[in-house]
């Protein structure tokens, strides 16, 4: 299996405060990875570093073997797309206009969007169940609809890696499952590599091929869900008491927190 992304001894400090402490891991193409860990563990910092929103990541992040620092913003957007936790757009833009923004990395400044771009936009919207929203203003969309539009935009970038930063934490159960199903399907059918920060450990277990656990800027453990979702690891990481049972449907580990 080829490594599509490699993080190697990544350390990030904000004026002496260490946010990421000597972290290393690799992502294989076509897998779903989740990052879990308490608030302040450095999960968001890690995503910021990967999207080139922090300096000084020299020699520690490699995308398809190339150092991140050698990527221009536009070229990076052809490799990595991003779905944030929430998007607030007060301006009256249509669903299709937003998804079309995903084509920016592929267009030269003087180049007009062509029929190929429109085809990709249409397909991205169909795959995310948003094609019916193409003429709806984003100001009139529900949270779930808006988030699916943002996933469609990320998809239109045709990037091999999709980062998702707590993509479902603002959504109801139905929309959570819908978004997670969409991403899982893209991983299975199109070979997308997903790296998704999640707070819901059970959601992470159900959808991930591998889970990365972080605490205080360090990698605690990473690997297959059933191997690393253990009582002692979670209790150490989160500082609460948990019980782990077998999910009766999926036979995967299921976490119950028992601090009452």
């Amino acid at each position, binding site marked *: 299996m080829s490594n599509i992304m490699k993080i190697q001894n990544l350390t990030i400090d904000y004026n002496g405060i260490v946010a990421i402490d000597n972290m290393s891991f690799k992502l294989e193409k076509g897998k779903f990875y989740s990052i879990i860990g308490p608030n302040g563990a450095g999960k968001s910092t890690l995503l910021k570093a990967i999207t*080139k929103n922090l300096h000084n990541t020299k020699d520690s992040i490699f995308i398809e073997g190339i150092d991140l620092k050698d990527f221009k913003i536009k070229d990076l957007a052809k490799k990595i797309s*991003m779905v*944030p936790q929430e*998007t607030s*757009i007060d301006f009256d*833009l249509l669903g299709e206009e937003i998804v079309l923004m995903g084509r920016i990395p592929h267009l030269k400044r003087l180049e007009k969007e062509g029929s190929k771009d429109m085809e990709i936009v249409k397909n991205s919207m169909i795959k995310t169940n948003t094609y019916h929203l193409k003429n709806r203003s984003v100001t009139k969309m529900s949270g779930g609809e808006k988030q699916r539009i943002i996933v469609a935009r*990320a998809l239109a970038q045709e990037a091999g890696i999709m980062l998702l930063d707590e993509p479902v934490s603002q959504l109801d159960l139905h929309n959570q499952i819908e978004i997670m199903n969409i991403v899982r399907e893209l991983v299975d059918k199109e070979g997308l590599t997903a790296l998704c920060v999640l707070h819901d450990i059970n959601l992470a277990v159900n959808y991930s091929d591998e889970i990365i656990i972080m605490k205080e800027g360090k990698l605690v453990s990473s690997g297959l869900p059933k191997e690393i979702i253990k009582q002692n690891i979670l209790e150490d990481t989160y500082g609460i008491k948990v019980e782990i049972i077998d999910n009766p449907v999926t036979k995967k580990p299921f976490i119950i927190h028992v601090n009452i």
Partner: protein
Amino acid sequence: MEEGKRKGRKLTIIGFLLLSISIAIGISLGGADMSIIESLKALFLQGDTSQEKIIWVIRLPRIVTALVTGGGLAIVGAVFQGLFRNPMADPFVLGISSGAALGATIAIILGVSIPIIGFTGISIFAFGGALLTMASIFIIARARGSLDSNTLLLSGVALNFFASSIIYLFMFLRYDKMKQIIMWTFGSFSTSSWEKLNIIIPIVTIGMIILRLFARDLNGIMTGETQAKSFGVDVNTSRNTIILVSTFMIGVLVASSGIIGFVGLMIPHLLRLVVGADFKKLLPLSFLYGSVFLLICDTISRVVVKPSELPIGAITAFFGAPFFIFLLIRKKRDENYV
């Protein structure tokens, strides 16, 4: 999107009709009354020589200046609202206008009178003030180590107040010049000339073309800067280019005609209500409707108290604000019931 395009085309046609009508009316009204037929004759055919002179030397340059100014202000207003993700932004939000006014004030107090290529010493100083303001904003933001929109916006607001306070001090100290300073800030097209237009038109045209080339980036920035970066918008480069280009446009327009408010705030909002926020549609329409609106306002300012005229800077908001509020309320109602 198809519907948006249709509405855009409809608005373009209506806009050009309004433009033609307002130009025809603007040409025929003024100190010496002519019928529209007479004035059009003087414009296109061989007319009465004195009428021809009035049209070609006095009225036409003024009309063209009003059109270019209105269009330029509306475009920069639209751009700043998107760039700063702030519906209250207007072309003057970065303090560029106050910087220009300070420059003009200094020129008035020093009695500078070295006209260059049709511009008075006051205009030259005003343009210098605009550019210095922009330079200060970038220096402040850089010193703070961050060039994000909020830093730029806050620096602009602070500089705006700072420049205004110096103007007030000057007016307090030089009471005799107060009227001249205030009249300058009101704005006026009465000193319009072809010579000045030779400078204004190229700057505004080039500026508009560059801003249009950044329409896609502006759409992205409107959804958030971090997000825009994640889909390939080089936010820093785009933002700096846009501010630089806009400053030159605003600087030359303010230097030539003073501070004319409200056009840049109102026109983009009204157009968004109809065609949405996509900058590819919004920018050309902003120019068209900004032009028409300011020409109508200027015509009103010229004819209401003939042979004197009202300050254009007061007219725009006097007629614009109630109309704007009316449309905002009506739009809200449509949304609630449909």
